[in-house]
């Protein structure tokens, strides 16, 4: 329908040309840079019959300048606050600035980074961050996937179930930390209460003060908050798989387990990837959660880089060292974003 409008408008503005130029138009439209949607390709032939090259190119030529007022101002904010700030952060990490006055930008060194290499508390925080990233991501993906498969069984009240499962994600880390500190309360918290209730008294713990269980308790609570998110992503992925595939597998006599393991789950790769990227981002932001529970000192068994960075920079006022820790955190994020952007680009989704 839109192409009919287009044709009408082209005629109205006097733009009708010979067949020869139509060919040029088509190829020109085809090679137009960065056309990310397939809109033109679908009814390209029809358009070619109605448009003229001069008109087409006139409206394509100055798209950069034309679009600049739209993405320019927000782009400047992003450029300054995100990329400028990260660059500045890197420079600060090279200054060795210890907090008094302003940083001395004239003598830069990598001293802070060599200091990181020999800092035992950094090693602990780095290791804990990796454990948290991995365990939290994998656990949330597994729980999210299982719940998504259950919700996908044409159940009644699907919307209600989904809403409840996703609810924790709408809460702030501050709120969930308060709930979970109550859940984990060794004497009257619900976790130990339930364990006692089912006769597993021996498993009751002081979850948040015992170095052995602290990190695991945090990871479990974070999984509670974000597995619903994985469920939503996986459910969307499952819905995109045609019903015929389930039928075909059933006719072949495949068991349910086999069907999911061999046929369905491999097709959810894209969902897994996008969920992973977002989970990693949340895990890197788990600062708020730990900060409410433990302040700046969660102890070596649960210290993570984002908390260490805040402690070093804002509690101990060692700006340069804190900035260096932040750069490590940024590098970790980049390790996830880079491949993600690359794949998105390859798939034509950027």
């Amino acid at each position: 329908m839109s192409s009919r409008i287009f044709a009408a408008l082209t005629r109205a503005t006097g733009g009708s040309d010979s067949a020869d130029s139509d060919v040029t138009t088509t190829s020109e439209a085809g090679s137009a840079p960065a056309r990310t949607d397939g809109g033109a390709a679908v009814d390209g032939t029809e358009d070619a019959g109605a448009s003229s090259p001069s008109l087409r190119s006139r409206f394509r030529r100055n798209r950069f300048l034309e679009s600049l007022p739209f993405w320019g101002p927000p782009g400047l904010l992003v450029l300054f606050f995100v990329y400028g700030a990260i660059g500045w952060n890197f420079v600060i990490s090279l200054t060795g600035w210890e907090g008094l006055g302003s940083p001395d930008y004239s003598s830069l060194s990598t001293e802070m980074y060599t200091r990181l290499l020999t800092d035992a508390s950094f090693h602990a925080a780095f290791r804990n961050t990796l454990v948290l990233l991995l365990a939290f991501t994998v656990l949330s993906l597994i729980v999210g996937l299982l719940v998504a498969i259950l919700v996908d069984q044409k159940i009644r009240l699907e919307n209600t179930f989904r809403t409840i499962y996703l609810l924790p994600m709408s809460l702030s880390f501050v709120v969930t930390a308060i709930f979970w500190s109550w859940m984990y309360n060794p004497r009257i918290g619900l976790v130990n209460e339930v364990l006692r209730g089912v006769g597993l008294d021996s498993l009751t713990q002081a979850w948040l003060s015992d170095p052995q269980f602290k990190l695991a308790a945090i990871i479990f609570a974070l999984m509670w908050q974000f597995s619903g998110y994985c469920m939503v992503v996986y459910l969307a992925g499952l819905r995109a798989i045609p019903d015929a595939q389930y039928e075909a597998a059933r006719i072949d006599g495949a068991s349910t387990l086999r069907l999911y393991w061999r046929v369905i789950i491999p097709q959810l790769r894209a969902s897994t990837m996008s969920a992973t990227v977002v989970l990693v981002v949340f895990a890197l932001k788990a600062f708020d959660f730990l900060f409410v529970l433990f302040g700046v000192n969660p102890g070596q068994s649960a210290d993570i880089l984002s908390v260490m960075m805040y402690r070093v920079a804002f509690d101990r006022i060692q700006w340069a060292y804190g900035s260096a820790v932040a750069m490590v955190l940024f590098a970790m994020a980049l390790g996830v974003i880079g491949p993600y952007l690359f794949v998105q680009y390859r798939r034509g989704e950027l």
Partner: protein
Amino acid sequence: MSADASDGPFGLDASRIALYAVLLAMVAFYLAPLESGFMTAFKTPDGFRSTTPFALPPLGEFTLSAWGTAFNRLSAGLLNSATMAVPATVLSALFGSLAAYGLTNLSWRGQVGVLMLFVAGVFIPYQAVLVPLTQFWSFVDLGGRIPLGIVSDNEGLINLGITHVAYGIPICTVLFRSYYATIDDEMLEAARLDGASAATVYRRIILPLSIPIFAVTLIYQFTQIWNDLLFAIVLVSDPSNQVVTVALNQLQGSFVQQFNLQMAGAFVAALPTLVVYVLFGEQFAKGVAGDT
């Protein structure tokens, strides 16, 4: 039930029952901390020590006093959060919409590169910008003055709002972009050939089409800004300007064993996002999935 049972691997009635049992167990899992906290918020200190954490308050132990105290303690923070989060949400969504239009519907060479910078911005750990940010805001020091000579005593809160706008733009752009990519280009071409400027096309065609995605983005972004703690503790030093997450954290720290007060406080602070979620859960879910 009969129609349902014919499909999916859970064809038998027995397994169907098992399915609902597991789904309900998951409901219990996701709601347990909320339920336990909610019950505790209505109990007196004696009440929450003598009953199980998920039980209803015992007779004579039911009280609303924790709610009253929590609300009094957090009301200033609630107001500060609202005055900061609402404009910051609207502005970041608007900027995101404009950027997405410029980077999606007005195609030009090199567009993908710029778009990548926006998308990558979604994933930046805030710690990586924290030190420069405090430096910047101490240099700029609006001194309670926002441009145009308007004097405000909301210093810190304005800095925080602007910061949230800047860091919200990437995710808003991504959300709008995924929506704008589905708009038929030919329709926009037609309008352009008719003599409409890029701005007119945005105002007359894109904006009216954007209402659903604006809803999604505003809901998602409001939740994010309202829930933030890190930027708030770093950027707002004036105690009278602190936002509700910071106030809640302090409430929790200063009443260590008063669980009823902590739980009531958590619900009071979460109330706006809970209301938004209950009313617009579907849109929130869309925003979340649109992250990808």
